């Protein structure tokens, strides 16, 4: 069975090719069937493989397809590694991916057939890349998928290519990703020189004998890659802009794929990070900062998708905090739960937007609860989950990270907790503004309001269930001993990285912390709910609120310190090119011409002059003879 693992990515690839090549001849129905069908097939395959992997005593299996690059002593096979971590991700990707595909068949139904097919082919390609990323048995295959998802995000964000703004957002995503990718790439080169290989087993095996400095360097560079892909400071600004794409795409990017790539990669490299405490600290600090930072911005956003986007950035920050403090399982756990509730939230938002005829500003919504019952309920579940209110999934995963952070340093915990409160606040602000109160849109929209079709609601319901119950996969020891299914499942992967450095927190403390965070989340949620239930925030924010609404002016800052100087430099180079470098070349030519014009004057036409010059020539020769020593 495991040998068929290559089918898992190949099926979406086939879907991509079929939909892409025959986009003009396929009907929408066929397209949808192909697009979703391949994902479903992959999901089933993943389940089957999962069945094998979860058996006790399973060791990671490497499936080599062919020799990819083989130069000198460096051999990079095109190989897949199947182990607990990759299977878990496989399930998340194909499962959530399938739901999103399904959802899309309805959501995108108004598109023309060729574009519809194009959309699905992109989606399939996206999933293919992501699968490649998690399946790759070495860093290069991982990198291929890594860049692949970057490309697909570019294509999907810019899906409506007529709009130049969307195009810019797509471009920004790609370029930001590339900046991170460069770090990743250099890390790979470093590994090659250091270990002579990029295969996970070789690298992790060799890491113990390498110096801490080297490992720190490599891990930091890898982290640079991760900040790009997973939208961490300083490379996070592309993600909120990426809302330009169709909403299901946002769901895909934010929930199941792409942004989790960074988490996956660091989790995968836990063996390296465990050896580099400095890197871990950096990861934790950056993660935490990002979490807080994004959360503050989310407070003042009015675009339904933007709020969700910043919440994603913030949640990703959590995951990095988890990775940084050594709670790899917690981070992966959070990835999973996040995949569920964030997909749910985005799809719900999509449903809202669908109903609103494309409107995304929450200030123009309100009272949608009645018109969209399924959507509103599932959305509420999502909000509760993300806010960390027990017993929904978000609570468990977030709590695992927070307790690990507390063990590392209380400061981490306090900030993390504060961020969690902010999360609860802005999520319920969003929910309250959108779904309760009175409708604030146009009459036309009001008439148009309707619950979404089944193809959209079914994924919502499925995801809502998952968001609600997935937390039970990771019940902390403090509550029920040995109930942490996920930790046991993933143990082989993370154990390989060495002992967990986190100082164990006593169960009592942990329970206290849990109660504190759950209580605070609940309180803040209710606060927000009541605050915005009937009096939504409609005015333009002022003062500090304005700073937040404008995202701390980071885009403007980047523009001023990077984009503009770069443009200036480019302009200067163009000038240099024209006047100095080419000028020098042309100058030589002109000098020759000028010389010709001047020298020609020697040819005065006067015999006397000629003879005089001849005599001077003779004189010169004799002077050389007389005075130049030989």
């Amino acid at each position: 069975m495991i040998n068929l693992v290559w089918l898992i990515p190949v099926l979406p690839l086939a879907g991509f090719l079929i939909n892409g090549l025959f986009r003009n001849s396929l009907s929408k129905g066929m397209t949808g069937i192909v697009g979703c069908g391949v994902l479903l097939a992959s999901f089933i395959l993943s389940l089957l493989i999962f069945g094998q992997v979860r058996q006790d005593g399973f060791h990671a299996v490497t499936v080599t397809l062919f020799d990819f690059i083989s130069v000198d002593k460096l051999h990079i096979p095109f190989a897949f590694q199947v182990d607990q971590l990759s299977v878990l991700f496989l399930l998340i990707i194909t499962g959530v991916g399938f739901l999103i595909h399904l959802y899309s068949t309805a959501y995108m139904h108004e598109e023309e057939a060729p574009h519809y097919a194009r959309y699905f082919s992109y989606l399939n390609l996206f999933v293919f890349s992501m699968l490649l990323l998690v399946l790759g048995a070495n860093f290069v295959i991982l990198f291929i998928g890594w860049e692949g998802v970057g490309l697909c995000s570019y294509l999907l964000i810019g899906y409506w290519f007529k709009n130049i703004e969307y195009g810019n957002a797509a471009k920004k995503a790609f370029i930001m990703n590339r900046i991170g990718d460069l770090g990743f790439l250099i890390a790979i080169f470093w590994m090659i020189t250091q270990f002579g290989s990029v295969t996970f087993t070789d690298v992790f095996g060799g890491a113990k004998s390498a110096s801490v400095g080297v490992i720190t360097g490599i891990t930091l560079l890898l982290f640079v890659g991760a900040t790009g892909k997973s939208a961490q400071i300083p490379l996070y600004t592309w993600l909120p802009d990426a809302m330009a794409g169709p909403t299901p795409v946002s769901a895909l990017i934010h929930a199941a794929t792409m942004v989790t790539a960074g988490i996956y990669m660091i989790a995968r490299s836990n063996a390296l990070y465990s050896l580099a405490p400095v890197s871990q600290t950096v990861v934790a600090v950056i993660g935490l900062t990002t979490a807080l930072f994004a959360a503050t911005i989310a407070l003042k956003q009015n675009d339904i998708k933007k709020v969700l986007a910043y919440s994603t950035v913030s949640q990703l920050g959590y995951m990095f905090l988890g990775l940084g403090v050594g709670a790899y399982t917690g981070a992966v756990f959070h990835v999973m739960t996040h995949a569920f509730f964030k997909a749910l939230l985005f799809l719900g938002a999509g449903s809202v937007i669908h109903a609103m005829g494309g409107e995304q500003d929450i200030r123009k919504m309100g009272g949608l609860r009645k018109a969209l019952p399924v959507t509103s309920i599932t959305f509420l579940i999502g909000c509760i989950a993300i806010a960390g209110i027990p017993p929904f999934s978000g609570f468990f995963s977030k709590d695992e990270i927070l307790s690990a952070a507390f063990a590392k340093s209380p400061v981490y915990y306090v900030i993390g907790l504060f961020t969690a409160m902010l999360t609860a606040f802005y999520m319920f602000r969003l929910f309250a503004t959108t779904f309760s109160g009175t409708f604030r849109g146009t009459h036309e929209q009001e008439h148009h309001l309707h619950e979404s079709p089944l193809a959209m609601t079914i994924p919502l319901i499925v995801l809502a269930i998952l968001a609600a119950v997935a937390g039970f996969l990771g019940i902390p020891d403090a509550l029920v001993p040995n109930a942490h299914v996920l930790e046991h499942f993933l143990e082989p992967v993370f154990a390989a990285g060495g002992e967990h450095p986190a100082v164990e927190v006593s169960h009592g403390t942990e329970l206290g912390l849990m109660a504190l965070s759950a209580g605070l989340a609940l309180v803040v949620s209710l606060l927000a709910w009541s605050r915005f239930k009937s009096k939504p925030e409609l005015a333009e924010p002022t003062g500090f609120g304005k700073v937040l609404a404008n995202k701390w002016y980071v885009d403007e800052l980047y523009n001023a310190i990077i984009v503009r100087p770069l443009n200036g430099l480019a302009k200067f180079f163009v000038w240099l090119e024209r006047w100095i470098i080419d000028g020098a070349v042309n100058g030589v030519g002109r000098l020759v011409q000028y010389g010709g014009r001047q020298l020609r004057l020697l040819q005065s036409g006067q015999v006397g002059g000629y003879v005089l010059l001849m005599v001077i020539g003779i004189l010169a020769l004799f002077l050389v003879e007389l005075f130049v020593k030989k």
Partner: protein
Amino acid sequence: MNAIIISAVWGIIMMFSGIVTAKGSTIRNAAIIGLVLLLVCNYLDLIGYHLFPVDTHKMLFFDTFGLLANGIIFASTLIYVLLSGREIENIAQRMPVAECFALIFFVLCGVSLVTTFNTLLMLFLGIEIISIPLYILTGSDKRNLKSNEASLKYFLMGCFSTGVMLLGIAFLYGASPNGSFSIDDLGIGSQKLSALYMAGLLLLLVSMGFKVSAAPFHFWTPDVYDGAPTVFTSFMATIVKAGIFIGFIRLFDETFGDSQPRWQLFVAIITAVTLFIGNITAVFQQSVKRMLAYSSIAQAGFMLLALLSINGLAKEGIILYAAAYSLATIGIFAILIKMKDYTFEGFNGLARHQPLLAATCTIFLLSLAGIPLTAGFFAKYYMLASVIETGHFFWLVVFAVLCAAVSVYYYFRVIQAMYFKDGDAQVLELRPGFKGLLVVVAALIVLLGVFPQVLLDKLYTLVYTW
């Protein structure tokens, strides 16, 4: 000896042919026969069959180098007459054709002397025999003030350089240990040279430099080449120059060869100046004819490299260079004569009206520029290689190639005008034979460019078995 006597005699025959017939074509045919005869006899000489066993009392020495050079020169002259001979008749309203051909033969006689001289006296006489007819040919367009002016300038400066040369010879005579002009006796060896000897050497360098238009003794060249009737410019710039160059090499090889390190620097300076002035000044010319005059200076600069590094490669190379340069220049001049307008603009759009003419002209120009696949490339190759072989004067080599790059600029201006610019280049009437011959010349150039050894094989074996 065959060539000297036959050229002199044929000159006299040509002189009298004017009495027998006034028909230009007959006279020209007679000249062609004479040239073929010269070639044949020279070849006989080359393979050791001497028609006139004259005891020259060591005044002349016939070696392969000289005879091969003669062969090249006669062949070039033959091609020249075939291509442009008819044009001589066009200036013949003022100038009897027969006499012109007679003078050309006398010049050839002088050239044969210069290529085979063995005493300074013969060199002197040879140069004078070359020069005097040339003064006249230059001025042969008697009503044309430019022609007059060119002739007088050439004459005055030529006499001056003769004076310089004689002073040099006198010094050498004074320095020679046993009072002789024979170059066998002048070779003093590599010991320290007397001041007299050195002064003589320098003066000879100057005067020979003058004859081959090496800077700064080149000033007559542009004016004379420009002023002279184009058909004779072609003759002067190619055949005569090549001939004198052979003599130049011979003089410095046989006479001063042993003291080469002593005078190399001077040659290097002159070469550099020549290359510089020739190439740079040519850049700004508006008339193709005058550009070719400057280019001939530039080419002389390249040939001087052979003088700098007299060795096997140089002597081989100078023969090839002479051939390559003469063929290409004769070809271009033959085309130039057919042009109504000698300026660069006059060539605009030639390729459209006369594709064949333009194509052959391009090959000639490429050869002059030294692009591979043409004889000019190997010619330049040999020159550079000979200097590099000596291991000194590397800077000069680099300088030479930079100048060669400059030369591309003005040669390609013609190509640009012909091919890439619009215009209607006016061309005089062309005979099919003329075109055919141009193609043959171009083919020869390409042949030499691919297999230079065709020409050099004989020389090579001889040079290295010496």
